[in-house]
Structure formats: structure tokens, C-alpha cells
């Protein structure tokens, strides 16, 4: 079972520069745990105590997983998961 995961530029330090890696799992949560075993520290950039980090977008094929089931979203062989840091900012200080 191989799921393709596309990694944004800023996280490629965890994957030795690779823009695409592979992982396994039946849910997004399991997939991220598998990726973290292969690329230590990557999961922490995507997930915190509350689940998926607020300003990181994760997509299953073409859909933002926030509109699916978040970390419980089922994934399967042949799927593509894409990670994109949110583009945000503004005069507000958060």
C-alpha cells in the first residue's frame, strides 16, 4: 500500500530535499505516523495537541481534509496527499 505525499519546500529539510515521499496507513493519522518514522520531526510540523495545525493545509487528492474527516480521513493505495503551508498574515498581531 503506497500513498504519495507531496511535501512543500519549507518541509523538505525533513525529507532530505525530496518533494515527494511515500507512506502507508489506512487513515491520514496513521499515514503521518508512518511518515514520521521515516522522516523524524515531520509530523510535529503538521499536528499539535488539537489535531492538524491551524495554518497547515493537507489535501487528500483535491480536497482539504478539514472538509473530510481530518486526521480520521481514510486513505488508500493510489491516493495523493498534498501538504501546503497556509498563506496568511496581515496587520493583526496573533
Amino acid at each position, binding site marked *: 500500500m503506497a500513498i504519495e505525499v507531496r511535501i512543500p519546500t519549507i518541509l523538505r529539510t525533513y525529507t532530505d530535499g525530496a518533494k515527494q515521499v511515500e507512506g502507508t496507513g489506512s487513515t491520514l493519522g496513521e499515514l503521518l505516523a508512518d511518515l514520521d518514522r521515516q522522516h523524524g520531526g515531520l509530523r510535529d510540523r503538521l499536528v499539535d495537541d488539537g489535531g492538524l495545525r491551524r495554518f497547515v493545509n493537507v489535501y487528500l487528492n483535491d480536497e482539504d481534509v478539514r472538509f473530510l474527516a481530518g486526521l480520521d480521513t481514510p486513505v488508500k493505495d493510489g491516493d495523493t496527499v498534498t501538504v501546503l503551508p497556509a498563506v496568511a*498574515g*496581515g496587520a493583526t498581531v496573533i
Partner: protein
Amino acid sequence: MLEIPQDLYDKIVAHARADHPDEACGVLAGPAGTDRPGRFIPMTNAARSPTFYEFDSTEQFGVWKEMDERDEEPVVIYHSHTATEAYPSRTDISYANEPGAHYVLVSTRDAAATEFRSYRIHENEVTEEPVTVVE
């Protein structure tokens, strides 16, 4: 240094003016590795706020996928401040996650004059750079 064609400069300013008092945001895409902005992509500010902007996540996915297919990258990521100076805030710095991009800030706080400045933001450090408008 940011070198930007006049028409793209004008489009960014027009976008910021049109969305004032909400912050406007968008991308200038260019061929990967060239640092040349060529394609104007205004984005929806999903926050629709006078003090915050965020790309709509689904729209962002479409734009990033299209850039990838065209072998482009985001050369410029721009947004406007509507009541403060055209300088990156702490929030802007925290969320600057495209290390290769020029971060353009426009201020529409003065109705008569638009401020347009560009920065590199890398590992939480801001460096302003000169902007050259070309034909």
C-alpha cells in the same frame, strides 16, 4: 531586489485599492528558477478582514497545482495593509513559508498615495529590498 513589470505593479495596486478597507492578497507566478514575475493571480482573502488575510485553502491548492503543472513558482506573494505601513507585521513574518518568494506589501492607508515595498523573509528575519519597475 524585485524587478516587476509595470502592468503587474499596476494590477497589484488596483487590487489593493479595490478591496480596501479589507486586506487584498495574491500571487505573481513566474517560470521556476527565473525570479521573473509574469502572471498575476489575485486570491480571495478568506478572512475578508481589514487586518488579516488568508488564502482560501481550496483555491490555493488549485493555484499551486497549476503552477506546478506549468513549471512555475510563486515569485511574489503580495498583500495589503489598509491602516498601517507597508511593512511586515509579526504575523506576516510568522507565516512567511515560501522561502523563495518576494513578499510585497502595499499600504492603502493614504487615499492619495499607495506605498509599495518588497521584502525577503527567511527564518523569521526580514530584509527590505529595492523595487524596480520595468516596462
